[in-house]
């Protein structure tokens, strides 16, 4: 008999048939009789004072029911990380001035979308244009346009840390090098557009169906910006068409739909467009990463100095996290004993940056893995060997004091090397062909409590029914990654029932216990543990009764396959259904409800010391590419993606994450770029923003490495965000191997290859 009966199996979610038949309702599919349609007026200027807004003409347009501007709000700024109040810097509707092209100025509710759109053209906004700045380096210089009054040199958030003895380590290093890497802004591009349907009813209750990936934070941000009480709001996340970080923040659609509904007393629906999505929603932080490292002759990295300049755009949003999060991977993937880290989150008059899959780590690991190859070459060491030499090992503690209980990086490297036939191929590939490696580590959820909430990070309840099934209530958000299914598997395993015995009610702030949401790759670890604890609580209530009935010791009982029995004698046990009925009878009808929660070990935000996450995933991807020297076109032939996710609760879902990550990383490496000139996105459509189609995908070999971690439910770790990190460095290192061209700026497009070839007579490596 296998150890687990449900965990570890590649089972579909029980509601996947609804997604296959088109019956799954997404936020944009909802409608309420009598609802109005909203549209949002946005700034055309990157930086300007608002002198006056005249909406009279628009109000006279037949069908227009309400127009709101900043004056209709309570004028409270919001943000994402409440621990740093100065980063609460954004009005839901602009009041004093606009800070980027797309800043929200007004919103209209009308009887149709067409009328609402027409009304936008009739709203007259008088602006006084202000000087703008679009490059964070320029923005930090004295005399640069000031974007927020509180921010000196436009620095929105800064982090400076030093661990070990950096100066000494550099002095003693045999080899030191400095490089700078530049990454571009890219968009999340979830397939579903933003949508919000708000219904403020006569009892004073606001219900919002939203494309959010964190109903809890959205609820909190609505409380703050609307001045409502917690009990007056209900946020529901229906089926959601992808998130990737785009939807952790409150969107203007959420806020405007809610306020318009409050003002009109009618339901209001606002749908985003693809152009808005590309131009005005959050995007991945473009970064400049300066990296200086020192190594011993044998390739041991002894010291690293990172200086990261990140463009947060007009507002901070998740900018605090974007600067804090890389501290983990720069110290966890490789054993760096001495570290200097300087991170600057800088305002500009660009579109606002926010969390995106891997949250800063794809940018930073592009630098780490690129430089590691450069060091390896200079020291004459094989790229796999230099990684194995420096690789993190299990049961180590990082220079931050973060304990690493499990680590499969060495196994990942060895498996990928074997599958890619590295030993025979490396150095022997034909001209124009090359291989490269990228690596990563990533938090299985960050131990940050942004709002200083007293509730736990994740909580869940499990209610047992008379028919032997269970209803799981969790605040966790299935945004497409499959968390409803993963959490149901965890509940089923713990209870000892089948997967289709579990119904999941999730992500509804009225019904489900608090869970902070789907971000920082936290759901399997945080919500998974909460669910496991809740299921165990429910099960234990049954075991107490069954133990008496069977005259057995409670510790000798096992629940599995819809039965509870003394270990080793399943034929003599009691059915799960009978156990529930017996428990309710003994307890005079008291329902069997299990409760559970999870909090991570503490992390000190002030000193950056401690366990930034309960556990880390690790991975290594190997890419093989072919570069056409005539056209500069790069074809990625294959990628082997090895990932240590701890115990894979659902292997096919982990594979799905790896394959999807390859696609997203491929775009990041080679083709995706929100081309932005003077604050304006020039390619806001699928025709001009090139994300990989089925024809662009290389062969992907997914390798799941399972290093059990004691912190995870059944030993599981993350496999959602970290998986996208190694793709770009693997491809860029392979391009170098193929051409001798060291590309330090993403994306590596054919024109850059041709230009680089002209620029220097390339020597092929190996």
């Amino acid at each position, binding site marked *: 008999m296998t150890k687990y009966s449900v965990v570890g199996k*590649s089972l*579909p979610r029980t509601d*996947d*048939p*609804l*997604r*296959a*038949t*088109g*019956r*799954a*309702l*997404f936020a*944009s*599919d909802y*409608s309420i009789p009598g609802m109005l349609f909203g549209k949002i007026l946005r700034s055309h200027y990157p930086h300007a004072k608002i002198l006056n807004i005249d909406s009279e003409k628009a109000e006279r347009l037949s069908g227009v029911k309400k127009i709101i501007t900043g004056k209709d709000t309570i004028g409270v700024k919001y943000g994402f990380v409440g621990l740093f109040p100065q980063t609460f810097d954004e009005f839901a509707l602009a009041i004093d001035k606009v800070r980027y092209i797309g800043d929200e100025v007004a919103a209209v509710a009308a009887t149709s979308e067409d009328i609402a759109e027409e009304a936008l053209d009739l709203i007259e906004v008088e602006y006084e244009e202000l000087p703008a700045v679009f490059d964070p380096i320029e923005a930090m210089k004295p005399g640069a346009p000031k974007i927020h009054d509180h921010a000196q040199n436009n620095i929105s958030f800064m982090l400076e840390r030093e661990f070990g003895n950096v100066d000494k380590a550099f002095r003693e290093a045999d080899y030191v090098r400095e490089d700078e890497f530049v990454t571009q802004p890219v968009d*999340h*591009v*979830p*397939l*579903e*557009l933003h949508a919000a349907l708000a219904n403020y009813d006569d009892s004073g209750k606001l219900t919002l169906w939203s494309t959010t990936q964190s109903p809890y934070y959205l609820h909190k941000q609505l409380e703050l910006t609307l001045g409502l009480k917690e009990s007056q709001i209900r946020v529901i996340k229906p*089926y*959601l*068409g*992808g998130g*990737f970080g785009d939807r952790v923040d409150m969107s203007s659609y959420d806020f405007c739909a809610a306020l318009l509904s409050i003002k009109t007393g009618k339901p209001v629906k606002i749908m985003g*467009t*693809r152009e808005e999505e590309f131009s005005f929603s959050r995007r991945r932080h473009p970064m400049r990463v300066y990296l200086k490292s020192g190594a011993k002759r044998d390739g041991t990295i002894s010291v690293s100095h990172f200086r990261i300049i990140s463009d947060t755009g007009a507002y901070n949003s998740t900018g605090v996290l974007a600067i804090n999060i890389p501290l983990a991977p720069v110290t966890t993937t490789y054993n760096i004993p001495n570290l200097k880290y300087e991170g600057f989150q800088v305002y500009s008059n660009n579109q606002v940056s926010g969390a995106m899959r891997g949250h800063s780590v794809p940018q930073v690991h592009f630098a780490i893995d690129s430089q590691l190859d450069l060091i390896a070459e200079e020291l004459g060491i094989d790229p796999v060997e230099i990684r194995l030499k420096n690789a993190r090992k299990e049961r180590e503690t990082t220079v931050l004091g973060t304990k690493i209980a499990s680590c499969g990086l060495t196994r990942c490297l060895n498996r990928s090397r074997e599958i890619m036939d590295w030993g025979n191929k490396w150095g022997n590939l034909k001209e124009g062909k090359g291989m490269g490696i990228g690596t990563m580590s990533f938090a299985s959820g960050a131990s940050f409590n942004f709002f200083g909430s007293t509730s736990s990070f994740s909580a869940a309840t499990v209610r047992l029914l008379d028919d032997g099934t269970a209803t799981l209530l969790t605040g966790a958000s299935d*945004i*497409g*990654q*499959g968390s409803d299914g993963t959490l149901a598997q965890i509940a089923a395993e713990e209870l000892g029932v089948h997967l289709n015995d579990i119904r999941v009610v999730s992500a509804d702030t009225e019904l489900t216990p608090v869970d902070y949401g789907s971000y920082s790759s936290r759901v399997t670890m945080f919500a998974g543990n909460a669910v496991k604890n809740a299921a165990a609580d429910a099960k234990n209530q049954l075991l107490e009764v069954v133990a008496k009935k069977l005259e057995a010791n409670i510790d000798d009982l096992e629940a599995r396959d819809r039965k509870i029995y003394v270990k080793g004698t399943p034929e003599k046990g009691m059915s799960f259904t009978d156990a529930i009925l017996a428990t309710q009878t003994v307890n005079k009808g008291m329902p069997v409800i299990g409760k559970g929660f999870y909090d991570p070990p503490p992390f000190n935000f002030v000193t950056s010391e401690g366990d930034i996450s309960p556990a880390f995933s690790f991975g290594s991807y190997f890419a093989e590419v072919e570069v056409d020297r005539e056209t500069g076109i790069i074809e990625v032939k294959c990628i082997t993606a090895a990932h240590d996710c701890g115990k894979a609760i659902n292997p*096919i*879902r982990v*594979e*799905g994450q790896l*394959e*999807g*990550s*390859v*696609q*997203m990383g491929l775009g990041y490496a080679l083709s995706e770029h929100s081309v932005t000139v003077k604050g304006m996105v020039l390619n806001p*459509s*699928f*025709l001009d923003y090139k*994300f990989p*189609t*089925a*024809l662009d*995908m290389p062969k*992907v070999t997914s390798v799941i490495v399972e290093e059990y971690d004691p912190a995870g439910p059944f030993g599981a770790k993350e496999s959602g965000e970290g998986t996208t990190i190694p793709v770009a460095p693997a491809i860029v290192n392979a391009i170098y191997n193929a051409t001798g061209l060291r590309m330090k700026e993403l994306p590596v497009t054919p024109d850059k290859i041709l230009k680089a070839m002209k620029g220097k007579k390339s020597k092929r490596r190996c």
Partner: protein
Amino acid sequence: MKKLIELKVNGEEYEIAADVNRTLLEVLREELGFTGSKEACDLGACGACTVLMDGRPVLSCLTLAIEAQGKDILTIEGLAKEGELHPLQKSFVDHGAIQCGFCTPGMIMTGKALLDRNLSPTEDEIREAISGNLCRCTGYVKIIEAVKVTAEQQT
């Protein structure tokens, strides 16, 4: 200007009065309640709105409702029969081809159109067929597999 439009969707006849500039996607979703077809670009660039018109895949966001008059429209809602999933739908479920599920209806309709005209497509033919359907979650790997396995089971 509104016009009476007769549409045959999933075997049922409908008569609606709609402005002539209304797209088939708008009418399907907003007038007839077939919300399985999705809007994700409104530009004919993502395939999420794909339906079959007389057996051929069309982008319903680029097709006027009035153009669909007299044609046989099949949407994702018309694929399962008597509660039984179409083999392609079942295959998508079983092979992990669905993550968020937003592209799924369009992807399945495109897949069906392919299998209707080509009983045993090669992997390259599947890739080509679905290359106009964008998916941000799966990397297409399991979608291609789901279509391939369905084809193999049918032949």
